[in-house]
């Protein structure tokens, strides 16, 4: 079974600085998708960024980027120019491929990010 590990239960960053959240996963599949979700105090889960395993290029969405190391099974999230609104729980998630349908998402335990003014 696939597993996702987030080794940092809590992180903090100064406003305008850069922070990197770690995620590793375990799988025997060669094709899959990886995601980072953000959950602010409002509880609404928001998709931050996604990565297809077959793409070597790291995904980027504005201030958010990933460092995807397929061989190492590592998928870290970098937040640049951190803002107070980035404070949230961040979840790393994995989804494999299944013929004819969608596979379930497997989540890590989350990292709570605090942004200090």
């Amino acid at each position, binding site marked *: 079974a696939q597993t996702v590990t987030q080794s940092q239960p809590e992180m903090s960053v100064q406003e305008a600085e850069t922070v990197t959240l770690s995620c590793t996963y375990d799988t025997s599949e060669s094709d899959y998708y990886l995601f980072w979700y953000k959950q602010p105090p409002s*509880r609404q889960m928001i*998709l931050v960024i996604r990565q297809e395993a077959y793409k070597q290029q790291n995904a980027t969405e504005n201030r958010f980027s990933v460092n995807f190391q397929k061989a190492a099974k590592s998928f870290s999230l970098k937040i640049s120019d951190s803002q107070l609104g980035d404070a949230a729980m961040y979840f790393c998630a994995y989804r494999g491929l299944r013929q004819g349908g969608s596979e379930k*998402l497997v989540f890590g*335990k989350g990292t709570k990010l605090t942004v200090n003014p």
Partner: protein
Amino acid sequence: DVKVTQSSRYLVKRTGEKVFLECVQDMDHENMFWYRQDPGLGLRLIYFSYDVKMKEKGDIPEGYSVSREKKERFSLILESASTNQTSMYLCASIPSQGGSYGYTFGSGTRLTVV
């Protein structure tokens, strides 16, 4: 704006009650999921459904059942609520083609069983 709606944001129920958590999506998605979220444990899959009247157990199905009579609605049922089912419950959906689509989540139901 596409949406997954969970009928209750907060619920308080008594031990032994039968509890229904409702989830409705307006995106015509085939796949729907129920997760449970607990501090330090992340999100754990309870049940999912890939079609009307179809369901599959997730990682922690014990004490729960589900119903999907219509494509847009996926209900989670606690047959006899217990205090260890106090938690946040999240519903999500995704189209069958999946791919790099992320889930669309509801805003969660915080259930307290007393």
